[in-house]
């Protein structure tokens, strides 16, 4: 475990801000044309499925099967959209709201808990500190799916399965978040500042919420994003816990539709448009917050 501890984080620089390269203004050379062309080809690989999704969102089920996959056919986007939001009640909208609850509220709480714990581990010396940190770090290496099964068995003992809690509660524990928070807090929150606050009579809690959290805010955004993705990506936990489709997150909902095509032929179009609708806001959010990803990832990787 020692190599994961922060014995040397004191020397870690805070994440570098995005750097503008001055080199980019040279005229294009042959190698730059080659590299750029190569990267264009690569980006086709990454973008093609998204392009297919966008095109297919505008097709009804018949056109989906019977028209060229990479070009538009009869334009049914509005029909698909209204069908998506009215199929089986307003279940799709409900799935979206559930996802917002699980991922949004879950990651918000996870960030708060991780920040407090990481801060405590970075800024207070007490017996057992390294042991606690070591155990938490061990948690990073435990696969979530291996936890989900016993968690299900335990929750069924207390009749908590098939409830919002069964997905939300396990989602607010983020060992990796604690790790990031500790690494960041130890370099970004000066001890002198905490000591000065103490001298001024500020309580530990007030110091944390008013001073330290503000200093840690870049790391908090990163933790939030990480946990948001982790929850939004976690398919196994809701699959195991939930049997009432009204509680599903959108991933599980679309998965269940994907296995029920026989129930209604138009369902295949709803899965396509439902996929598009559910990922677009996230992609936009992700791409616009990319800066935080990079800074957080730099902090995380450099200290390993």
């Amino acid at each position, binding site marked *: 475990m020692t190599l994961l501890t922060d014995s040397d984080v004191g020397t870690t620089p805070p994440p570098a801000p995005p750097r503008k390269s001055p080199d980019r203004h040279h005229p294009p050379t042959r190698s730059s044309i080659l590299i750029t062309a190569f990267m264009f080809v690569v980006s086709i690989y990454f973008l093609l499925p998204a392009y297919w999704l966008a095109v297919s969102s505008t097709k009804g089920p018949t056109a989906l099967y019977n028209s060229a996959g990479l070009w538009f056919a009869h334009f049914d986007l509005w029909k698909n959209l209204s069908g998506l939001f009215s199929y089986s009640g307003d279940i799709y909208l409900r799935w979206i709201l559930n996802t917002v609850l699980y991922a949004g509220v879950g990651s918000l709480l996870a960030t708060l808990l991780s920040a407090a714990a990481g801060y405590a581990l970075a800024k207070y010396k007490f017996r057992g500190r390294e042991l606690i940190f070591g155990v938490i770090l061990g948690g990073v290496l435990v696969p979530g799916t291996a936890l989900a099964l016993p968690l299900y068995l335990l929750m069924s003992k207390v009749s908590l399965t098939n409830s919002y809690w069964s997905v939300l509660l396990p989602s607010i524990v983020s060992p990796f978040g604690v790790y990031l928070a500790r690494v960041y807090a130890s370099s970004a929150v000066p001890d002198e500042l905490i000591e000065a606050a103490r001298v001024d009579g500020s309580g530990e809690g007030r110091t944390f919420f008013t001073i330290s959290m503000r200093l840690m805010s870049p790391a908090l955004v990163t933790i939030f994003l990480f946990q948001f993705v982790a929850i939004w990506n976690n398919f196994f936990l809701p699959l195991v816990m939930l*049997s009432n489709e009204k509680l599903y997150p959108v991933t599980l909902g679309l998965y269940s539709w994907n296995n029920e095509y026989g129930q209604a032929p138009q369902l295949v179009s709803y899965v396509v448009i439902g996929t598009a609708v559910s990922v677009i806001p996230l992609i936009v959010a992700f791409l616009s917050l990319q800066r935080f990803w990079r800074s957080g990832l730099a902090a995380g990787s450099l200290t390993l």
Partner: protein
Amino acid sequence: MKSIVGTDEARPGRLRKHRKLAVGGAAVASVMVLASCGSSSKSASSTVTTAAPSNGGSAAPTTAYSGPTVNLTFWSWVPGIQASVDLFNQSHPNIHVNLDEVTSGAAGTYSKMFSALQAGNAPDLGQVEYYALPQFEHTGGLVNLAPYGAASVQSDFVPWTWSQVTLGSAIYAIPQDTGPMALFYRKDLFAKYGLTVPTTWAQYLADAQKLHSENPNAYITSFSPADTGQFAGLAWQAGANWFNTTSSSWIVNINDSATQQVANYWQQLLSQNLVKVETDFANGWYKDLSDGTLLTWPSAVWGQNTIATNAATTSGDWAVAPLPNWGSSSADGNWGGSTTVVFKDSKHPAQAAVFAEWLNTNQPSITNLINKGGLYPADLQGEQQSAVNSPVAFYGNQNIWSTFEAGGKLVNTSFKWGPIMFTTLTDMGNAFSKATGGSGTLASAISTTQSDTVSTMKSQGFSVQSAG
């Protein structure tokens, strides 16, 4: 989630269609309820729901209960079953059934039921498919309904269903619906390729060969290795007897000659490339059903809706014939169907039994289950209801139901499921996948399943005799 057995409830094609119609359908259904029960029905309120007489069925097994109000919990996944529950609650003022809508059994509800049984907090009533019944019976999870008058409804049901729910003199469930099998075929394409409608499996093979030589891109049918429910139905038809019991131990005989015959037959079709290996109830398969790639589908009664919904453009092209037979025998197989059970944790087994019997014999309830749940009733009188006994426009106005009704009476009554059916069928599906993927044959997959089932049963403590 895909069901491991071809359960009707888990089958796509029968479910949501009805749910979608729920709003408009409620009024229609209540009209039908009114129409189908000629006797005294009274409006409970000004809403469209209608109270039905407590006994619409032929038998009157249930004595009225007039003690203090009893609350029962019922887990089911049949769409629209709430309307039947409402009818019951209105006509039985002292018994109140609360419905929990759950996902289909194999999609996780069975394991929830088992963990609830272990924890001692199972619901009073539950939906359980035939193939899963023994696993509940043989872990002591079900209440014997014989003391609660269940024997009096025996004559209401298709004979084979009754032998599925009984063990000796004990009655562990009330049958709800069935899946008698027949052959769906494209009559337009049969004419085009000059094929005759097969009455035997030998003719079916001949048709498959002729078709393939006429058009190598068309197939007589598909084979979906993981869908062991269809295979089980076909083995059942051939006279298989996978499980039996002596007074003290199980006899496992999955590898019997009837099953080997069916396995070898399909292996022959596979080896000659006469059937298309693909997952059924998936996009590609629906497309093949619609565009003439697949000419037949040996399937159960509920399959009529699968085709009508997912190959809507082929309206008028399909017809139904009895399932081809082995030689001169005339037998049928069954694919799917389920029952209502009372779990051991129920504090009111008598009242729960009243509900289980009423739900599946009361005609207005059955009407609702047919219309909203898409079920084909196990109740003989229910089979005569007009919704399941009149010409169907999609099938060129053929009254397809009569073929299934006749088939249901030819289903072997002595076929039994085993006590670890989930394991058996999953093993079989995995072994079939390997066979169609190129390693082994269906016949060797069957003998693997036999030995795996025996060893798993032994490891769980069952006393087993292997007949294979």
